[in-house]
């Protein structure tokens, strides 16, 4: 369909309101892209449209949406969002290319990305990264060791935690996740593994010490469902924490997240989410 300038002017209001048939819509776009005329009427009419949106009273979305959004965003670009722990193995194809508005099809693509498919090398890579991350952290820790026994104890606790994570990670059908800082106020990070029998093990470092009734709560977020609490743990002066659950609902693509709760037994996360990471299955 080829349109004249007069026809485009006739369709301008419908165009800016999104009320044209798809073929008309693309014909208008085609015309605007090439026409010598500035078609100021499109701008004049279109300039009003944002105010239609602004005439609404703001509505607070459900609190869980923030965590889901951040988890989904982190799962898409883990390498860039990770703080110090480089995952690197999951670069979505074409993610850096400028693409037009996200299409509905991308939803499926994203689901596919989040799901299994890291391949058999993932576990080996995971182990390498865990060791590298652990080593880096140990070096940093040793560099600031000042004879404080808390730090030594913390290093040992973290090593024990990572060993437990690796043990679970090597079981058949296990999944692993790197938890990267998701909140600017923290550098907390860690590793986690989940086994098919429901075992979930988490080893974290650089967590702020808990006080009073505070606990760090681990959450699993599957698809669009609300976060499910896995359990909590406290953290001492060393800033490390390990966590073990035997009834985890983890599955490939699930997000593991950590929040600081004022008291044990939280049923919905207290924001912000401190760290999160996406579980990936190994050996498939």
């Amino acid at each position, binding site marked *: 369909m080829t349109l004249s300038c007069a026809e485009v002017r006739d369709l301008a*209001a419908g165009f800016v309101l999104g009320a044209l048939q798809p073929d008309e819509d693309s014909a208008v*776009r085609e015309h605007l892209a090439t026409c010598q005329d500035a078609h100021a009427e499109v701008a004049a009419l279109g300039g009003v449209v944002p105010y239609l949106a602004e005439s609404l009273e703001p509505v607070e979305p459900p609190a869980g949406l923030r965590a889901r959004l951040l988890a989904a965003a982190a799962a898409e670009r883990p390498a860039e969002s990770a703080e110090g722990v480089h995952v690197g193995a999951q670069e979505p194809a074409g993610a850096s290319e*400028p693409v037009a508005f*996200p299409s*509905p099809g991308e939803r499926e693509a994203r689901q596919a990305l989040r799901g299994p498919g890291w391949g058999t090398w993932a576990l080996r890579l995971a182990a390498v990264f865990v060791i590298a991350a652990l080593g880096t952290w140990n070096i940093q820790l040793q560099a600031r060791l000042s004879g404080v026994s808390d730090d030594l104890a913390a290093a040992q606790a973290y090593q024990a935690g990572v060993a437990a994570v690796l043990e679970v990670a090597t079981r058949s059908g296990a999944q692993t996740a790197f938890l990267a800082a998701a909140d600017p106020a923290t550098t907390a990070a860690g590793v986690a593994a989940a086994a098919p029998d429901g075992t979930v093990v988490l080893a974290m470092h650089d967590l702020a010490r808990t006080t009073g009734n505070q606990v760090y709560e681990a959450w699993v977020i599957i698809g669009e469902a609300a976060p499910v609490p896995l359990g909590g743990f406290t953290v001492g002066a060393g800033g490390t924490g390990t966590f073990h659950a035997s009834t985890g609902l983890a599955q490939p693509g699930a997000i593991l997240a950590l929040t600081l709760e004022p008291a044990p037994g939280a049923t919905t996360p207290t924001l912000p989410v401190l760290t999160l990471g996406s579980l990936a299955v190994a050996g498939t």
Partner: protein
Amino acid sequence: MTDEPGSGALRVASPVDDADRQVLVDLGEGRLDALEELYDRYRTMAYAIALRITADAALAEDVVQDAFLGMWRHAERYVEGRGSVKTWLLSIVHHRAIDAVRRRKPATDLPDVDLPPPPQLISGDVWPEVAGRLDAIEIRAAMGTLSDVQREAIQLAYWGGLSQSEIAERTGAPLGTVKSRMRLGLLVMRRALTGATGEADAFEGTNGMSEAHP
């Protein structure tokens, strides 16, 4: 059509928008805290739009999440443009919400939501930046200056996701009348928002003032 419409008040660069652009730069670098900041700034407005269009809380949540994820993915693409970040985001929310609603009606043709807006709709001197000065009450007052049939046509299109042919069918008005109502309604609203009196009228002459009631 050589008039320069809207030489009135619809174009003031705001500090808010500069801050938005910085957020987009950070977003392009993959910083989750930038996404969080953008979300905090616009989540209530984005959700209000999605909820109004879909009338479905779960669907509205999906729409908002997808819209922000779109920004997260394509922030670099935006930085090259010049329009308001807020306008860009809200138009993505609107597109996706309409798309989600139409998807529930299997027989409906879907427009291609992948297409970026034409330059006429994204150039920085076009999209209004006065939002900080106008609150929802003032904007609703501006909408109050529309005639009932104009407002109905615009609302069926913008909030209902109906095409102009569908609006004609639904309201029993001829297609040409529906087009006029949408056009005049937008111009009346523009005039009410800017306080402009002259330029907008230039457009009204071209389509006639037909408000025929069948």
